């Protein structure tokens, strides 16, 4: 797999993950630190289906979508909704998602051990790269991950702009009180956003092992890049999250690769997350509201000297 191809695959997955994070932030104002765990949950679903039933990970995408969705919706119903009802502030909610992340990490560790015993193969560390096949001269995972993001965006566009429920969801994001006055069940739209967020993350998780090695703690590393993407996008913009996913994904892969070539030190590749952290810091300092908050017309006028 080439460096650019790998970067594109990673960016596709990051865009999916950032989309989910942004969606739940927009509807419930919860910065979800367990989003990486939702993804690795999907990775373990794919691994389980592959090792126990010989199901190819691509075919496990729909199952991962549903189960990931249930994990997302369950997290909201059991942990976050009761806290929001009690008037918890954003810090409390953030810490709750951090706790959820650590709980899921623990479960993953235990599960990986059990699955390893059943299948008599190590499950604490795995990759699907050996399943990659070339199609039309490019790795099939590049086509599949691109197809997943394109279909997700088309589906999301149709849902948000062409269906009554989608309009209600957008209305609930803008003004929950007025939505309730109009008779919209705002709670249902919030629950749905958590379902979708978990489902998209889980699908990204199924495809992630094609690109990188998965261990139970992968989630805690990936979350840095997911937050960087969402913050670059402005945290409350779907288009921004997608764009952020590509900016962070490409920068993280290509900058670390370039530095490792220039310095002749391949060990640098391990520190790819530093790029994401630098992006977070720079975005917060220069454009705290992300790409969506920049007044582009003003920038263009300034650039053209008008």
């Amino acid at each position, binding site marked *: 797999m080439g460096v650019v191809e790998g970067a594109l695959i990673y960016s596709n997955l990051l865009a999916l993950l950032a989309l989910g994070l942004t969606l739940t932030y927009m509807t419930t104002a919860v910065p979800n630190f367990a989003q990486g765990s939702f993804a690795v949950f999907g990775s373990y679903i794919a691994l389980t289906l592959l090792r126990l039933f010989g199901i190819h990970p691509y075919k496990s995408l729909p199952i991962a979508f549903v189960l990931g969705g249930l994990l997302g919706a369950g997290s909201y119903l059991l942990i976050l909704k009761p806290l929001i009802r009690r008037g918890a502030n954003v810090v409390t909610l953030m810490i709750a998602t951090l706790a959820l992340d650590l709980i899921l990490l623990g479960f993953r560790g235990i599960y990986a051990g059990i699955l390893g015993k059943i299948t008599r193969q190590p499950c604490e560390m795995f990759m699907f790269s050996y399943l990659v096949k070339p199609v039309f001269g490019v790795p099939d995972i590049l086509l599949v991950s691109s197809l997943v993001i394109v279909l997700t965006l088309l589906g999301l566009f149709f849902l948000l702009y062409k269906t009554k429920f989608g309009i209600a969801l957008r*209305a609930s994001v803008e003004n929950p009180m007025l939505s309730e*006055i109009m008779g919209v069940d705002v709670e249902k739209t919030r629950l749905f956003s958590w379902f979708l967020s978990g489902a998209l993350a889980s699908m990204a998780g199924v495809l992630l092992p094609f690109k990188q090695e998965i261990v139970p703690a992968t989630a805690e590393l990936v979350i840095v890049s997911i937050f960087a993407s969402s913050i670059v996008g402005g945290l409350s913009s779907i288009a921004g999250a997608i764009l952020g996913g590509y900016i962070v994904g490409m920068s993280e892969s290509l900058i670390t690769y370039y530095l490792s070539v220039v310095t002749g030190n391949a060990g640098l590749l391990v520190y790819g997350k530093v790029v994401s952290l630098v992006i977070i810091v720079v975005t917060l300092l220069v454009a705290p509201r992300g790409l969506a908050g920049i007044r582009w017309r003003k920038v263009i006028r300034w650039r053209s000297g008008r």
Partner: protein
Amino acid sequence: MLRTEKLNAGYGELHILFDVDAKVNEKEITCVVGPNGSGKSTLLKAIFGLATIYSGKVVFRNEDITKTPPHEKTKMGIAYLPQTDNVFVNLTVEENLKIAGYTLDKEELKDRIDFALEVFPELKYQMKRKAGTLSGGERQFLAIATALVRKAELLMLDEPTAQLSPKFAEVIFQKVVDLRDKYGLTILLVEQNVKRALEISDRAYMLISGRVVFEGKAEDLMHHEKFERFCIGLQ
């Protein structure tokens, strides 16, 4: 149609309304006037369930709705239009009207939108525009139109002419009169433009410091010897 009995309400520990007895007759415009901070908006919010009610009752069509949640009141035919943020600025006019009829089926929704556009034909040509790009007056048209879509029988309007040019304000007053005369709706109106509001109203209440100081025919309030003293908050 609607009445409050000894209503005490406010926000949390901030007690604003004291023993308010008020009634709204069917197919009439009832207007609530009073100086700033007298509790006019709180009265509408308390009736709709958006303020804390400490004691007293709200009765609609002989049914006690004191504890009925707002979205249930919407279904009963009560519409409340807040003074600001009464439309979704990021949605188009068409989407605003559709979301207003969220609980209706497709056929009924179409009929209701057609009806709302009959009352506000000005909106017909703005359907694809985002509500945030409409003028203040057009936004008020849209806000009232959304109430019509959701089959409101009682419209509670909180200062619908605030921040509008006198020309647009007059159009809104005229529409309110039409809603009563042509379409048989009942209106509870809170207004800063006291004189004009009283001219179009059938009945009126004057609130000062959360207490009713006048109740009766709108024209009687206008000609009341203490009217001007009432208006500046002196009893």
